[in-house]
């Protein structure tokens, strides 16, 4: 990758005092005008909501039409942190994050390896792999809900007909099983994206490394452990953090498949925030929850940016 990095270091503007002041001023002005539309479109939409959510998180707002909204300081936050009904969604989110990310990374590695292999109909395989990712989340959730249906679902039919189970299971009826099924739907949908990320990492491994290993007559597991995995560390870290962030935001799948049930068994943190604000109309608490999620995600984002910087990202 030396060629690419040489190119990109050329591309970043030169540093030092040589830069004439006038030229610099004109570049800054141009940059301002070029970035203005994007900034207006993004920050124009989110700045006010972010500030407002932050303010509401310090107030007691119990209905959408409330006129009396007393300032309650940090009590929404302390209420959250001392409340078990906050920690169980938190635990579920962690479980969801760890299990789904681990599975997606594991399967993603296999799929990435196959995408990278010398296949006859490579384009066809790539086209197949891209499909779950292209299917809208809501559609894939509806699909899995149908497949997992206790009475008529295809999963029960299949497992009974091949003799794995002897009576129909209620896949979405028990909290733990339901959470695992939501994870299954997430893994089906997101593994392709993870695989493509890892493939991009695989492509960046110089072929000389493989050739050197071949000359040394290294075995495949050995090559995987000593060349592929270390070279994939940047992609794997990015996938890890991105998927964690997504897991903290997961909403669509749960809304469609289980509405957080049974017995709140699939209520993750973002869904809990949604329920608190919209069903319970407790906007103060809901906002505090949102702020909390943002803080956790911001923490992860910092990690993400650090990893990127370490992996030779010339922009940051």
């Amino acid at each position, binding site marked *: 990758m030396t060629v690419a990095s040489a190119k990109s270091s050329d591309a970043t503007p030169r540093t030092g005092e040589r830069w004439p002041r006038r030229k610099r001023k004109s570049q800054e002005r141009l940059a301002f005008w070029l970035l203005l*539309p994007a900034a207006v479109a993004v920050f124009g939409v989110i700045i006010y909501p972010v500030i407002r959510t932050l303010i509401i998180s310090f107030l007691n707002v119990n209905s959408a039409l409330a006129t009396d909204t007393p300032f309650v300081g940090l009590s929404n936050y302390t209420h959250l942190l001392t409340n078990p009904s906050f920690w169980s969604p938190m635990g579920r989110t962690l479980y969801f994050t760890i299990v789904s990310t681990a599975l997606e990374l594991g399967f993603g590695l296999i799929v990435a390896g196959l995408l990278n*292999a010398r*296949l006859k109909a490579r384009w066809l395989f790539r086209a197949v792999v*891209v499909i779950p990712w292209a299917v809208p989340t809501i559609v894939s959730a509806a699909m899995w809900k149908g497949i997992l249906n206790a009475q*008529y679902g295809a999963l029960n039919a299949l497992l009974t007909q091949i003799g794995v189970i002897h009576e129909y299971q209620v896949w979405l009826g028990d909290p733990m099983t339901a959470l695992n099924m939501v994870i299954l739907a997430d893994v089906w949908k997101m593994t392709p994206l993870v695989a493509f990320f890892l493939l991009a990492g695989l492509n960046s491994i110089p072929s000389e490394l493989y050739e050197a290993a071949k000359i040394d007559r290294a075995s495949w597991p050995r090559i995987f452990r000593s060349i592929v995995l270390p070279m994939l560390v940047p992609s794997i870290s990015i996938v890890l953090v991105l998927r964690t962030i997504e897991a903290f935001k997961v909403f669509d799948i749960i809304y469609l498949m289980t509405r957080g049930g049974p017995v709140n068994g699939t209520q993750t943190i973002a869904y809990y925030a949604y329920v608190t604000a919209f069903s319970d109309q407790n906007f103060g608490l809901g906002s505090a929850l949102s702020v909390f999620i943002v803080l956790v995600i911001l923490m992860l984002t910092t990690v993400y940016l650090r990893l990127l910087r370490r992996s*030779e990202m010339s922009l940051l």
Partner: protein
Amino acid sequence: MKRNTRYAVLVHTGAAIVSMVILAPFAWMVIASVSPQRMLISTPLRWFPDHLYLDRYAQIFSTELGSVGSGFRAAVVNSIVVAVGTVAVAMVVGVLGAYAFARLRFRFRRSVLALFLVTYMLPQVALLIPLYLILNSLGLLDTRVGLILVDCALVIPFVLWILSNYFLTIPVELEDAARIDGTSRLGALFWVILPAARPGIFAAIMFAFLLAWDEFMYALIFTSSSAAKTLTVVISEFAGRYTTDFGLVAAGGILAALPPIIVAVAFQRYVVSGMAAGGVKG
């Protein structure tokens, strides 16, 4: 030689198995959408219909008022308008901004880029209530324009990220040559960078389209009628209303999944180049 055959058998079997696992649930959705209801609720389940039953698609496309289809057809139009509108705005705005990030020197460049990326990490649920109030006061609730507005805020950081990384991989010399010939910076962006960045542009368009088409939460809260309801919302209503008619949900789902699948399959060879430039460079 023998080792090569073994390799070929191994990877082809692997690819076949993976394809089957990926396609099986989706294939079942396709089959269910064209199977008569009595077959879908039979035990033991029969996997293949004895005849093609296309009534559900007819229902969905029926023009009769108050039928299943009336809301669906409007949603198709809404989804297309919202997704295409969002992609168009995000690409224009994104190309300009990405050029600034990749080529210009200005104060706080890193921080501004980081700020854009941080917004992508905000959960939508944190913004719902205030955004609802804003859209309401602007009269943009339940309109496609309102949805494009909020979707753009989701999509633009992503587009900026992919494009500015891709622009970085284009040699500056190309642009310098054009500028010596008297082309302005914007001229160079238009005539030199954009043609050279085609894979990156396609990757960005594809990501933006999938993101906009997939968007659910904003559409769920900010739309209430067929004036702006998108397909994702209609499908979720289908899934809630017709719990025992998986065939109908499946038919709607397949129609809703078709446009992004076509886009993704058509553009799939740009996915990796877009991502490789998008920060996974080793």
